[in-house]
């Protein structure tokens, strides 16, 4: 059984979701992982997209966060301001699933700029829902492919906060949620050290050398005292993920008639 790095990563992320979890999902890998969990071991995962759709069960992955599929399969649709006030800030989200362009050793994320903010080398899309997801969701899962360009000693801009300057600096700033619990990469899984809150390699995928993970990280990556050997994806997860991607590719490449 062979599988790609992205498949391993998506399955590893999905497995972390237990059934009945209320999950605030961003587009991309987070959406794939959360839907994979819902379609396999966690059928009662409640998916919330920031477009205002609550309890969606899409058959294919949405390309945008507001595809019609999300509205049609939702338990309810609420105005977007309400998603952020009553539902996210209201403390009703168990897990916030985030991606980013860059992460630092304390799980702070940058999705805003590379270079100077006012005269950026590269302007990225920006923070979107992430700052308040990172603040309010009880637990934060981050999904990000590892490379020295994405796992950096110093992010150019803090779009959303993880453990801030480490230690208890997050709690002191008054953020209600517990902060990043896990960073799922294509090498393995990072978790914060319980005291310093610095991200450490805590789990490694089959056949991956921890030294390779360290080489892919832009800061000197510590390895946890007990390094978990993360199992390969099950056939069930792989089959479900591949079927989901196949359905999604078909749906997104379908040319619909123009509304003439």
């Amino acid at each position: 059984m062979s599988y790609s790095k992205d498949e391993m990563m998506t399955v590893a992320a999905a497995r972390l979701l237990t059934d009945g979890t209320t999950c605030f999902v961003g587009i991309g890998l987070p959406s794939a992982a959360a839907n994979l969990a819902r379609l396999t071991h966690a059928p009662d995962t409640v998916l919330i997209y920031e477009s205002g759709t609550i309890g969606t069960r899409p058959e294919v992955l949405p390309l945008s966060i507001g595809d019609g599929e999300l509205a049609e399969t939702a338990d309810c649709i609420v105005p977007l301001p309400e998603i952020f006030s009553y539902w996210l800030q209201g403390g009703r989200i168990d897990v916030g699933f985030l991606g980013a362009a860059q992460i630092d050793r304390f799980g702070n994320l940058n999705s805003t700029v590379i270079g100077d903010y006012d005269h950026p080398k590269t302007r990225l899309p920006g923070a979107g829902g992430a700052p308040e997801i990172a603040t309010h969701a009880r637990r934060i899962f981050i999904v990000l492919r590892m490379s020295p360009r994405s796992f950096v000693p110093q992010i150019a801009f803090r779009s959303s906060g993880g453990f801030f300057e480490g230690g208890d600096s997050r709690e002191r700033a008054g953020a209600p949620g517990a902060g990043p619990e896990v960073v799922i990469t294509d090498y393995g899984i990072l978790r914060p050290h319980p005291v310093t809150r610095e991200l450490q390699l805590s789990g490694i995928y089959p056949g991956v050398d921890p030294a390779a993970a360290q080489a892919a990280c832009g800061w000197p990556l510590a390895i946890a005292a007990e390094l978990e050997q993360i199992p390969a994806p099950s056939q069930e997860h792989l089959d479900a993920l591949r079927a989901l991607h196949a359905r999604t590719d078909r749906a997104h490449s379908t040319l619909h008639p123009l509304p003439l």
Partner: protein
Amino acid sequence: MELLSLREMIARHVKPGQMLALEGFTHLIPFAAGHEIIRQGIGDLHLVRMTPDLIYDQLIGMGLVRELTFSWGGNPGVGSLHRLRDAVEQQWPRPLAWHEHSHAGMAAAYTAGAAKLPFGVLRGYIGTDLPKHNPQISHVECPYTGEKLATVRAVNPDVTILHAQQVDARGNVLVRGILGATREAALAAKAVLFTVEEQVEKLDAPMNATVIPHWVVSAAAVVKGGAWPSYAQDYYPRDNAFYQQWDEIARERGSFRAWMEHHVLGTADHRAFLQRIGEGRAAS
């Protein structure tokens, strides 16, 4: 409410220098109205939108935008908005001032605007760099608990333009499906314009449907397919393929200009625009 042609509605209500919000979160984005603004060359605009999307990429690339207030500036599920990036990174075709929020902050700014409060309150921006760069973000102390909370200055556009499914004979507008911040953007604005898929005698609206009453709508225009390549729930789906193509079209200045000239400046109205898109698809 008065029912106008799209051309007349834009000509009469949209003026250079205004603060405009074309809202709709992925769904019901008023593309036809944006294209008509481009055809009429109404410039020097301050555009507001949570997600600038392709329509603001086009307005920015055509040099019509002076300022942008937003919270996420990408091509959803695809990547960058290349024209927005070019304006920010290279000041092409003109410099762009921008005011950046989180989604929660933008939502609070629209909500405050709709309520005609000068500011909105949220437990937000904690530990982020955004407040350092946006003076529209500040803080206030709770008079009961002493907690320090973030504030955002209210957003009150001169004109908000929206797309919806139906307008009835009296001018009431039905919006169905994902709402985004459309109602807040509408109620925050001094004038509200709608394009709609169709005019009907009586709205297809069950009790508790989202209806914007006729007396808060300044004008409406029937524009079939007016949200394409965005979508209108129950009318046509989002053209995800076009969103993916846009990445290629907008990547270079030349291909962008050529596309805009052929498809938008070179067509008289939205129907002609869609026909030209169709011709391109048939040829490929």
